[in-house]
């Protein structure tokens, strides 16, 4: 059996899945000041009376690292950054203990200017004096040639604790993002490690030694052991959990919108043939633009508990939330209260809802029922407009070849899947307004936990080859090989797949769900003075975000209501 656990702002959802489908689901309140207790309680409750031997994995999606970053509660770390010419790396400063040093590598990975050992040592001395333990090292174009990062690492490694190097964190280009990502990994490392070690220990003490996996923002998982080196990958996994929970129910061979409607916000995502659309560069968390792979999601400040006000004659819904709906003792009217007025609510105080909506209705000079309908419509329309904008934006993403521009796939969703607390109430109206099919994800209130449980291990490998320099390399995978002038795109793809397979197994995946694909494969003749001097090859392969192999059976059972 598999446990999926997703920490939310107010509730933590936990699901236990077995061959027979959903075995058990629970919700425990989230205590943001004590996530450890929250998670342990959730895990204990879900496994009550279950023999530990039957559970073979637990996937956790938590807000631990995200909150620590957003609240600025991460420990200080050191950053040593080698930029060379270009934009002043001071503009990419991530933290106080940040030291730009000399050294420069060009776009083909050739050294232009060496690193200055004295500068690096001086920075290290200062960092030590400041009591810094963990350090991030980042060089421009280190994903083409990691030599400078490695040199800096070797110069100072005896003086510090855990060190993070940019080239290990992503194979992609983008120096400022590489700096931010390396910094985030370095700074959340101890928090992440201590927390999950404590979780593991406590579970073991209770006789529950379950392999722990961590959900990532791209909707994939990684084993706890491999997450120690990439703790930053755990940020903003929340929206991914919900999207993964919806995938099993998405139609084959077409595009589909996923709306996770919550109390305060609605998250929008897109699936193309049951595969979620990814952010092209990486996720953004506050001011940090990163290279962390993630699903493309758009979060808007509108949900079941959004505050409703009337300004002039205009209705305004959200983006703030004053509290729960009046039906549940809240202070002001919300879309959920509108449902009560329309006779759709259950187990709440309809009289209070009516009172709240009546005040809105008076300001709009209409009946409470008409006002409630207007609130529902406007909420749905706002959500649909944002979804449309997101679709348009994906379709207007720049492409770089004539072929792609001509044949470029245009996303046209025909189905909407909704989940989250108030989802079922919105479904019908969304269908009427959008003209699309709208389905409510089964077990919509814990679909996120189910999604976490069923997510497969994902990863990406970037490989480039330069036959003029006679190298093929994937610095992120610590791979570098001499190649001859016959090395081709086909050979590069084969090699990249090989590295990807290895990486999946190392990060906790199994060979059963290796849904690999090429995301980029370019080959250029390099010419000097009208003579071909070599080939420049770039290949990117990935394991698509998706669900583990046993999913279809589970989905069928969920659909059947088991």
């Amino acid at each position, binding site marked *: 059996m598999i446990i999926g656990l997703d*920490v*939310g702002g107010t*509730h933590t959802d936990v699901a236990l899945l077995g061959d027979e489908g959903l075995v058990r689901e629970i919700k425990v309140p989230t205590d*943001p000041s004590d996530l450890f207790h929250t998670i342990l309680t959730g895990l204990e409750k879900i496994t009550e009376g279950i023999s530990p031997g039957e559970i073979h994995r637990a996937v956790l*999606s938590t807000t631990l690292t995200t909150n620590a970053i*957003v*609240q*600025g509660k991460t420990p*200080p770390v050191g950053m040593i950054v080698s930029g060379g*010419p*270009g*934009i*002043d790396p001071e*503009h990419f*400063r*991530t*933290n*106080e*203990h*940040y030291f730009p040093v000399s050294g420069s590598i*060009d*776009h*083909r990975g050739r050294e*232009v200017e060496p690193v200055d050992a004295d500068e690096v040592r001086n920075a290290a001395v200062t960092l030590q004096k400041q009591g810094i333990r963990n350090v991030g090292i980042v060089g*421009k*174009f280190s994903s083409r040639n990691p030599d400078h990062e490695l040199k800096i690492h070797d110069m100072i490694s005896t003086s510090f604790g855990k060190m993070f190097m940019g080239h290990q964190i992503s194979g992609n*280009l*983008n*120096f*400022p*993002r590489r700096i931010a990502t390396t910094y985030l990994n370095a700074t959340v490392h101890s928090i992440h490690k201590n927390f999950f070690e404590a979780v593991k220990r406590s579970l073991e003490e209770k006789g529950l030694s379950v392999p722990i996996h961590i959900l990532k923002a791209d909707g994939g998982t990684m084993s706890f052991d491999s997450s120690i080196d990439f703790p930053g990958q755990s940020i903003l996994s*929340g929206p991914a959990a*919900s999207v993964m929970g919806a995938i099993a129910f998405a139609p084959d061979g077409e595009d589909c919108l996923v709306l*996770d409607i919550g*109390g*305060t*916000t609605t998250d929008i995502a897109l699936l193309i043939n049951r595969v979620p659309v990814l952010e092209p*560069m990486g996720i953004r968390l506050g*001011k940090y*633009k990163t290279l962390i792979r993630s699903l493309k999601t758009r979060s808007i*400040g509108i949900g079941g508990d959004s505050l409703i006000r009337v300004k002039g004659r205009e209705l305004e819904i959200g983006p703030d*939330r004053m509290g729960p709906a009046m039906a549940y003792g809240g202070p002001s009217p919300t879309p959920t209260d509108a449902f009560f007025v329309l006779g759709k609510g259950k187990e709440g105080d309809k009289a209070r809802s009516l009172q709240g909506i009546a005040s809105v209705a008076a300001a709009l000079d209409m009946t409470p029922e008409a006002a409630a309908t207007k609130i529902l419509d406007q909420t749905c329309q706002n959500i649909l407009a944002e979804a449309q904008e997101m679709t348009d934006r994906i379709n*207007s993403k*720049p492409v*770089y*070849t*004539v*072929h792609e*521009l*001509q044949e470029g796939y245009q996303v046209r969703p025909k189905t909407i899947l909704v989940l*989250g607390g108030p989802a079922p109430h919105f479904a019908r109206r969304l269908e009427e307004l959008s003209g699309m099919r709208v389905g409510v994800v089964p077990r919509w209130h814990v679909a*996120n936990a189910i999604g976490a449980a069923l997510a497969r291990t994902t990863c990406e490998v970037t490989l480039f080859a330069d036959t003029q320099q006679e190298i093929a390399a994937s610095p992120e995978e610590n791979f570098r090989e001499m190649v001859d002038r016959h090395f081709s795109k086909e050979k590069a793809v084969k090699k990249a797949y090989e590295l990807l397979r290895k990486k999946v197994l190392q990060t906790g995946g199994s060979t059963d769900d290796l849904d690999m694909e090429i995301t980029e494969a*370019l080959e*250029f*003749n390099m*010419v000097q*003075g*009208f003579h*071909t001097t070599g080939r*420049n090859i770039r290949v990117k392969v990935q394991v698509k975000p998706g669900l583990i192999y046993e999913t279809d059976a589970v989905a069928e059972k969920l659909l059947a209501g088991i």
Partner: protein
Amino acid sequence: MKQAPLPLPDCRAGAGAGVEIMLTAKYKTGLVFFPAFDWAISPTHPEREERLLYTQDQVIEEGLFDIEGITEFKPDLVTPQDIERVHFCVPDVWGVTTESHLISAGGAKTIGMAVLEEKIEKGFALVRPPGHHAMRMVHGARGFCNINIEAIMIEFLRAEYGIDRVAIVDTDCHHGDGTQDIYWHDPDTLFISIHQDGRTLYPGSGFINETGGPNASGTTVNIPLPPMTSEEGFIHAIKHMVLPILDEFEPDIVINSAGQDNHYTDPITHMNFSAQGYAELTNLLRADIAVLEGGYSIEGALPYVNVGIILAMAGLDYSRVREPRYDPDRIRQTPDITAYIEKLGKKVLEFWGQREKIKSQLRGTKEFVERTRNIFYDTDNIIEKQKETIRVCDDCAGAIRMDSSADRGAHILGLHVPIKACRKCKEVARQWYESGRKDAFDMVFLQDRTEDKYERSER
């Protein structure tokens, strides 16, 4: 699942750092980046797939698309009408273009629209293939160019947004003879080309005395610089020739044909310009729109030149942008060159100052002025013989008649009615069209800009 809303992290670095770091463009800048990774003239031709590969690497690695205020746009495609507004395409639009040309011109159009719709203040179309050697009459490709992407953009903007006075500053190392040809008779388009002296480089034109036709004398300005001109010489040309003329012309919009082959590492030219120089030039010129033209030092120049240009357009610090092993002393121009350029500058301004006088000399008492030329299409190896007639007119840019025959056989008549044509010029062009259709031409084209209508009749 959604998480409780949390305040965003502080925009500054860790407490105590106290440095304001977020990079924000001073001018909202838009980019179309279209490297056409699957298009080449031929496998080892300078205009091939790989040309913008390293530029893309550099631009992405520097994180330029992530800067606040810099936006990347997807290029639109131009329509046949967009092309026919500018060119007589023989035998037709499809015969002289490929998809990549439609996208390249489309990228310029996208940037133009974004600027005029005020989505951005500055825009740069980093597209290929280039266009500034393409003339009004197109029998094939010249100097790697089939259609003139700047002119197509400008005439689209005139048709759709009603802009009037346009200045084009062509800073490609080669004379922009195509753009010059298209605007030779247009007094509302100022075309200034800075290039390596035509006696030493393709296409062999662009001399200081080429100043425009009898209705538009002065609005073509050529600044032929000697080989080995360096930063100093280019900046002098901008400060002491281009900017004073622009000031006097008062354009609604300034376009930079931003060729990058003046670079000291360019394999097909002999200049000594640098990334720093290009950035400084961009900063001084303050063009609204830049469109990439040539530039074939794809590894050693383009990545750095483009980063410099983008930063300068956006109003950001470019002082640290430089090529590997850049040494300003090694490429510095000689005092002879400096003296030559200073003298040249005086002559250029003299021609500009005497434009009315030159105009009346060109006109004399003639009603029509003719010129006969041989035009060589080096890329496609075609020779065209052309006789051009313009009606001398004080009320508009004048009707144009082009009698053109290529050695491939086609005999063409092309007639142009300028956008603000007077009634008489329109009538004259119509008559030329009607009588031309009875004559022995293989094809007769009519470009009526006043009605945005483009006709073509075949024998």
